[in-house]
């Protein structure tokens, strides 16, 4: 056995590192720098200017008018919508994974819903639908019930915000919960049912407690994303007289002159504190509870029969999917075909002029061009980078490898608006002077979506059998050659789907774009936000419709690649 050791590889490792090792080392160090440097420098400049620690930024932040109300509103909205999304996601995951109500289309599309119709466009669509007087759906409902001049529903309210938050958070909980349920051994459930529990009671008493880690992980993700959600409260909040922390930070950075970076950073630190508390709670729940272990590949589970109840159950799932995607899309489409927003429901006076405007208006057209270009470059670059880092982290054990591993996961725990504040503050200064540049946006997108790309790349890498790489090394191939000829091609199916998803994420990004983009080099998110303040609604709707079509196409490509990959694996 000892004789078969890949001698060339060992010798190579002992001797000077090859070009691949040097390049990946530089890349890894570069990623650590780009993620940590702006955050640390911002923290240093705000909380320890000139080396002297100060709490002045916190005093300043907590002295802001009505900041207590803002914090309370943020907590209320995020906690309520996290709770609701956990309930809905757990229900849907159970229906899809454990019962005969399973609907493949829901199982496939629900996790991708936030990508197909980005939250920003969903919020705009629902404003067109549920504004109290002029909302198209409200007009329809009033026509049906024959009552009043306003309502019955109002998107510009606390419940409107919770509704929108729940729509976008549910998929993030659904993903881990459905994965856990699909692998859970069903013997406990069956035992409960033999002992007289109905299907629903067995789910609540046995199934859900058994997947507590997945539920809490989903709830934690939803909570973190809820805190970071920016586009929904930005669009709906002002009319509802409700501010949340992410919007408050944005306003501190953009309204009035000069920007209040100190107070904004202090509020950002507060958000990170909330995330820390949630993380500690999650760990405590998972550690303290006794829960069933997920069975391995061989886990067997029978399907629970719901009888005729499976039809209403399926209907609820389909309605949820429509409410989160098709319905707001139709609202965007309808308004995009009108000269101006009107409460009249009519096909008269339909026009395509808003689409012409999207292409002739310099701001919207360059927004599309810049976003699509950035998304194309960023998704490929990000995925290749993530692949290199994933291989680097998983095939090494040194300190840098551990640091790189931690750093690539870090941006998922830090609010996007905080990262944007750090980037705009630090990289605007000499020697960088990158404010308003495409490269700063690209860099920010790479950092923001690094955890997501890394997760995909890591999964793609772990599915490759190490035998191939070992064989390559035994044959004397250097690391670079092994990566280029063996590892990367084998990871390709997983990476291709990841590129499509990354493309959609970057093209639809709004939080960082709102602070980092400028009208000189706008991106779609920035343009929509600017148009919301100073443009026409039909133009926003036309842009949103186009954006949704682009996103849906990319998601369809990702789904196709996923299916293609699954089919290829099955064939193999």
């Amino acid at each position, binding site marked *: 056995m000892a004789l078969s050791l890949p001698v060339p590889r060992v010798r190579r490792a002992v001797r000077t590192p090859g070009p*691949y090792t040097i*390049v*990946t080392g*530089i*890349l890894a160090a570069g990623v650590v720098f780009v993620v940590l440097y702006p955050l640390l420098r911002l923290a240093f400049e705000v909380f320890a200017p000139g080396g002297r620690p100060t709490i002045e930024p916190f005093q300043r932040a907590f002295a802001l*008018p*009505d900041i207590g*109300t803002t914090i309370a509103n943020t907590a209320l909205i995020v906690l309520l919508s996290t709770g609701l999304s956990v309930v809905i996601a757990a229900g849907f995951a159970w229906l899809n994974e454990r019962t005969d109500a399973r609907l493949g289309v829901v199982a496939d599309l629900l996790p991708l819903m936030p990508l197909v119709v980005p939250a920003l466009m969903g919020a705009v669509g629902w404003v067109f639908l549920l*504004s*109290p*007087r*002029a909302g198209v759906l409200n007009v329809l409902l009033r026509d049906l019930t024959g009552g009043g001049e*306003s309502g019955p529903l109002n998107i*510009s309210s606390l419940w409107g915000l919770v509704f929108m938050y729940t729509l976008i958070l549910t998929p993030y909980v659904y993903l881990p919960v459905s994965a856990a349920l699909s692998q859970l051994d069903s013997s406990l459930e069956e035992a409960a049912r033999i002992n007289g529990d109905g299907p629903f009671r067995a789910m609540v008493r046995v199934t859900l407690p058994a997947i507590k880690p997945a539920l809490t992980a989903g709830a934690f993700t939803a909570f973190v994303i809820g805190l970071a959600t920016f586009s929904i409260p930005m669009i709906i909040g*002002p*009319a509802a*007289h409700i501010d949340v922390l992410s919007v408050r930070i944005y*306003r501190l950075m*953009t*309204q*009035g*002159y*000069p920007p209040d970076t100190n107070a904004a950073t202090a509020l950002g630190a507060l958000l990170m504190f909330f995330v820390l508390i949630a993380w500690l709670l999650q760990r405590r729940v998972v550690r303290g509870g006794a829960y069933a272990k997920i069975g391995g590949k061989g886990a067997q589970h029978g399907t629970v029969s719901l009888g005729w109840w499976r039809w209403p159950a399926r209907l609820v799932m389909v309605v949820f999917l429509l409410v989160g995607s098709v319905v707001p899309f139709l609202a965007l489409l309808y308004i995009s075909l009108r*000269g*101006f*927003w*009107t*409460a009249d429901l009519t096909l008269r006076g339909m026009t395509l002029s808003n689409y012409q405007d999207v292409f002739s208006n310099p*701001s919207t057209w360059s927004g599309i061009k810049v976003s699509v270009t950035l998304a194309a470059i960023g998704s490929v*670059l990000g995925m*290749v*980078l993530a692949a*290199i880092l994933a291989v680097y982290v998983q095939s090494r054990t040194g300190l840098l490898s551990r640091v790189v591993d931690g750093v690539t996961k870090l941006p998922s725990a830090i609010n996007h608006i905080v990262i944007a504040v750090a980037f705009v503050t630090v990289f*605007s*200064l*000499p020697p*960088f*002077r*990158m*404010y308003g*540049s*495409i*490269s*700063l946006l*690209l*860099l920010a997108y790479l950092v923001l979506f690094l955890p997501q790309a890394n997760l995909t790349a890591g999964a793609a890498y772990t599915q490759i059998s190490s035998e191939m790489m070992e064989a390559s090394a035994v044959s004397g191939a*250097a690391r*670079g*050659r092994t*990566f*280029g*000829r063996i590892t990367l091609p084998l990871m390709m199916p997983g990476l291709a789907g990841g590129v499509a998803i990354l493309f959609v994420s970057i093209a639809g990004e709004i939080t960082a774009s709102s602070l980092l983009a400028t*009208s*000189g080099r706008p991106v779609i998110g920035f343009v929509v936000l600017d148009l*919301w*303040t*100073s*443009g*026409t*609604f039909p133009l926003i709707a036309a842009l949103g419709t186009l954006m949704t079509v682009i996103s849906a196409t990319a998601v369809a490509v990702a789904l196709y690649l996923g299916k293609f990959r699954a089919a290829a694996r099955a064939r193999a």
Partner: protein
Amino acid sequence: MKRRVSVALALLLTCAGALSACGSDTTDSTPGVSTGDFDSLVAAAKKEGTVTWYSVSAPVTVDAIVADFTKKYGINVDAVRLSSAPEAQRISTEVKSGSVNVDVFTHGDASFVEAGAKDGWWATLDTNEVPELAAWSADFVKPSYVNMSIGPLGGVAYNKDLVKSDPPCTWDALLDPRWKGQIILTNPATTAAYTHFFDVVLHSPTLGEAWLTKFKDQGFATVAESSVPASQMLAAGEGQISVIGLIPPMQPLIDQGAPLGFCALDNPAPAFRTFAAVLEKARHPNASRLFMNYLLSKEGQTIYAQKSSAASPLGDLPGVVPMPKNLVIQPPEQVAADLPKIQSLLGLS
């Protein structure tokens, strides 16, 4: 293959490096301003060939000015339209980072323009470089910036389909119970110009806090981020009237058949002002001065004022609204300090 992978990775790094290098248009050197007469300034400006103008004005105003200036001088105007706060952000970042892209800007927030003047960001202008300044009253001219326009006039916009008669055209009329729950409010926090509108009310001896409180008690149908979405919500029927009504964002909707009407508020008449300045480190120093000269000329003023429904400090010009009689202007520092109180009185916090 090893070489190919390494080359690809190196290429990736180079790409990233190149992207960051080409990201910003860094220009530290400032070519000089023509020292000869106005004709030589025009010749130097034509040689520069372009001027970059950041503006908060409506597209219709920007387009008209750009078309006329380009026709007159054959100089290209790279016009960038921005909202007030992003414009201030962008200009200050450009100046601080030393990569100044903007040559001339027009802006509505007096405090930003004054702060930049104190820091020496704007060029000091004289009549040799900008001869039209000679015709301007000292009330509107500072060494490095000019209050180039008074307006648009703030008032009440209303939906003619929903308000068939007697639109509320006075401050008192806005408190009529008829408008309860029917008012689309423009968020005073969005820009200093909006804050100024309500600050004039706050400090008015006849209106004051009492008026703001009663106005809040009317209950707002919705709160819009600016008068642009407010006008569209008004057209859609989300409310019957809108405060702060402004004509420029209403005009494109009226042109498309939206049933919108407007009346200006007077006594007091809150003034929206527009300031103009040339950057000290403008990349096109001659073209920027020529553009400024054009903005201050009767020709430029007439087009600007007509298109933005504003009054001109030059006085009566053909087709331009006259200067409001009870014009009130509040100091910018006071406006900024009063914002939390205004928000609180309007129940927005």
